[in-house]
């Protein structure tokens, strides 16, 4: 069994053991619940084998929520450790603390933010362009199961073996075989690589969908803003993710087969790792942020009851950001020691990218200006974002000055900065989208009261947790410190821990919100399909939408297509026709299982299993290719029945 033996079980620390117990226990509890309720068949036929973009989108978001919980527990443990560990060891041993910050970053980027945004795009984008599904529904399911396979490996590292201690960026030479000999870095490599391949395929799928599946009449410049940001984000997925695949593969070759890409000896070059990693890594930041910008644009326009201000400038700003995101990667390693010319060029490019972002902020503000604003929970997340993101942007421009970066690099100032970008710039956007589109997906609204409570806890918690880190950065505190001896830091760190507790309350509010809303789903029901007085096409169909989305593909002639439809008189519907949809398929979940086993086998050097699972993966791909795409037909009479039930 390769290097797998009984020592892999987490008996090295009681905290790790508890983590493993919670993971296994949680998993068993879910399985027990499914068996008890007799949901096995339903789960398999309705969900796991589905190729419906709406269900895949929901599965992505469920995955994101579960991983958010895991990633947040990591965060809370780190804050607690740093609040305690002044002049003592704290409660976490160093090698465990290092695993926690590594898994926190990896989870939040790859297994929380990425599935969340992919889920939102999956659910909403085809509805907004008036399509029946994405361009390649089966491929969509494969992408999901690749991401899920990565997440499974990630969770497995908690139970069997250890996770990486090399941070979410996995810089060599520390992450090389010489300094990190165990399986930790391998878990990181393979979970990230497998999910990354899924993301690349999602990108291909979304770009093709947006370019070819739009409703008749919808020109590019009539696409809702969320579709535009989904497009640019997906283009970045297609073109940036290969660099991550290559760089993680090279690190794997270094570690497993003794290659010398990034080693100290034999002509390796560690800086090529940083170089390739951030060639992917910087566009990745915009992959995360752009879809959230799209959500904010939709929300701000609907709840200000106005057309989005400066739509054209918003589109160009989005595209400019997408292209410029490939020109700034060196700012992540200014301190590598390049000459002034190189650092200045990348510093200036970094500052330039703030310009289109500023354009967007002003567009949102002017949309609100003189609008009839409804302060709903999605709107609160949006306004909270605008204030907070502005601050994060300014600290970013500060860091873009190479000389200043030399002072701040690797301090908690940097930690505060990127959390200040990604928490409001991505997560707040995803929450806004979650609360905004939830009634569309499930036919009832989420409790506004608990949504607003969640927002206020997150918002204040964020400030309490991260503003002290800015100050600590100036005071010289390095990031990722397991313990320290500077007494003046401790009050700040205790305050930051208090902030994390506030965020915990925010997360609890999100849970209560879901619970309360499901309980009161009859009272909160959305019968119109349009609970917010929406402006775009997803609100034109029922909530939840039928499997085929639209009985008649809408004809679009305006930017706010649905708003325009509501203003003009209704025309008598043409007779319904048979609708053809792709049939569900068992191949995608099987491929996900094969991919997860392959990753596990390679991590533990179980080569026979790796060969077997790889062969299975190839065989499944070929088999699917040969059998083609089966379809199911929903007959016109059935469509008429479903549509009749709406009124």
């Amino acid at each position, binding site marked *: 069994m390769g290097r797998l033996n009984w020592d892999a079980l987490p008996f090295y620390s009681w905290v790790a053991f508890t983590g493993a117990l919670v993971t296994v226990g949680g998993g068993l509890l879910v399985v027990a619940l499914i068996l008890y309720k007799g949901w096995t068949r339903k789960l398999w036929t309705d969900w796991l084998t589905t190729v419906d973009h709406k269900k895949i989108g929901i599965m992505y978001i469920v995955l994101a929520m579960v991983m958010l919980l895991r990633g947040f527990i990591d965060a809370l443990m780190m804050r607690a450790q740093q609040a305690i560990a002044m002049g003592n060891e704290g409660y976490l041993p160093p090698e465990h603390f290092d695993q926690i910050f590594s898994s926190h970053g990896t989870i939040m980027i790859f297994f929380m933010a990425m599935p969340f945004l992919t889920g939102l795009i999956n659910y909403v984008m085809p509805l907004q362009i008036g399509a029946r599904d994405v361009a390649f529904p089966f491929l969509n399911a494969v992408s999901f199961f690749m991401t899920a396979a990565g997440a499974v490996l990630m969770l497995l590292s908690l139970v069997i073996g250890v996770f990486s201690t090399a941070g979410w960026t996995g810089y060599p030479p520390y992450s090389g075989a010489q300094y990190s000999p165990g399986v930790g870095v391998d878990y990181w490599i393979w979970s990230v690589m497998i999910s990354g391949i899924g993301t690349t395929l999602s990108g291909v799928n979304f770009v093709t969908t947006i370019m070819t599946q739009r409703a*008749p009449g919808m020109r590019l410049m009539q696409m809702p803003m969320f579709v535009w940001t989904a497009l640019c984000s997906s283009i970045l997925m297609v073109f940036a993710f290969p660099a991550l695949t290559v760089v993680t593969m090279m690190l794997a070759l270094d570690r497993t087969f*003794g290659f010398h890409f990034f080693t100290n000896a*034999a002509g390796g070059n560690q800086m090529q790792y940083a170089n390739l990693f951030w060639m992917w890594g910087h566009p990745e930041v915009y992959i995360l942020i752009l879809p959230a910008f799209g959500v904010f644009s939709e929300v701000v326009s609907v709840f200000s009851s106005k057309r989005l201000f400066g739509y054209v400038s918003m589109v160009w700003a989005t595209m400019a950001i997408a292209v410029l995101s490939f020109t700034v990667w060196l700012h992540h390693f200014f301190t590598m020691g390049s000459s002034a010319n190189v650092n200045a060029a990348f510093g200036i490019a970094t500052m330039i990218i703030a310009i289109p972002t500023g354009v967007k902020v002003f567009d949102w503000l002017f949309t609100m200006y003189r609008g009839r604003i409804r302060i709903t929970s999605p709107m609160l997340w949006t306004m909270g974002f605008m204030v907070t993101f502005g601050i994060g942007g300014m600290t970013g421009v500060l860091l873009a000055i190479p000389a200043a970066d030399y002072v701040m690099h690797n301090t908690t100032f940097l930690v505060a900065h990127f959390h200040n970008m990604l928490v409001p710039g991505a997560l707040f956007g995803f929450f806004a989208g979650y609360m905004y589109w939830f009634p569309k997906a499930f036919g009832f609204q989420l409790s506004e009261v608990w949504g607003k409570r969640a927002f206020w806890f997150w918002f204040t918690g964020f400030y309490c947790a991260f503003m002290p880190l800015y100050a600590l950065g100036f005071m010289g505190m390095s990031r990722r410190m397991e313990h320290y001896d500077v007494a003046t830091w401790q009050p700040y760190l205790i305050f930051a821990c208090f902030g994390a507790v506030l965020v915990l309350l925010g997360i609890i509010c999100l849970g209560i919100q879901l619970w309360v809303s499901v309980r009161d789903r009859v009272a909160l029901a959305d019968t119109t399909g349009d609970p917010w007085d929406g402006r775009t096409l997803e609100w034109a169909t029922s909530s939840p939408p039928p499997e085929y989305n639209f009985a008649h593909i809408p004809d679009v002639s305006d930017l706010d297509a649905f708003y325009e*439809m509501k203003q003009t008189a209704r025309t008598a519907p*043409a007779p319904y026709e048979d609708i053809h949809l792709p049939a569900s398929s068992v191949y995608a979940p099987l491929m996900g299982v094969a991919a997860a086993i392959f990753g596990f086998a390679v991590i533990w050097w179980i080569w026979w299993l790796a060969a077997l699972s790889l062969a299975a993966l190839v065989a499944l791909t070929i088999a699917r290719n040969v059998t083609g795409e089966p379809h199911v037909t929903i007959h016109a009479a059935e469509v008429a029945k479903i549509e009749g039930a709406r009124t």
Partner: protein
Amino acid sequence: MSSAMTPEAQPITAPHTSAHLEDRARTEQMGYWLYLMSDAILFVALFATYAVLHANSAGGPEASDIFEFSRTALNSALLLTSTLVLGFSGIGFAKGNKGAGFGWLAAAFALGALFVGLEVQEFAALVAQGASPQTSGFLSAYFALVATHGLHVTVGLIWMLTYVALLLYEGPTRRVLANGNRLAAFWHMIGIVWIGIYSVVYLPGILQ
């Protein structure tokens, strides 16, 4: 309220009409082309790494010690000719000439298989003379780049076999021919990457 929600009517086109098939073909072309571009970026990252590491021979064999002119020329000729005859095969099938289609396809497969065989032999010889990927950063980068290309050629060969199986099983239907065209595009793309490999790796290496 909800009665006003029905969007303006626009009957959809049932599948299997020619307009629908045209649309579907366009969608598949585009998706496939995007995949090819993504794959190209994969090679870009490998080329960038080779460019950075090519001089880091760490006291081991250098480029001029191990690259052979005639072998490179032969490989280039094989791959280019294979690309040509695979194109011929596609025209054959499109014109309904199965004999030409299968004949040229077999030729393309043979040339591609010969290419892979020669490359495996080259790698084996390199390792035998102490120029393995574990020797230096330069050789790691060289093997990664050239072997990734070779792996693509191998995938193309396997794909050719499944394509033949599809042709025999289903005949040259629209769907199968589309599969063949994607295969051809993949093969042509690999050919273009090879131009990069001999221009960046082999010829400059021999020159020094």
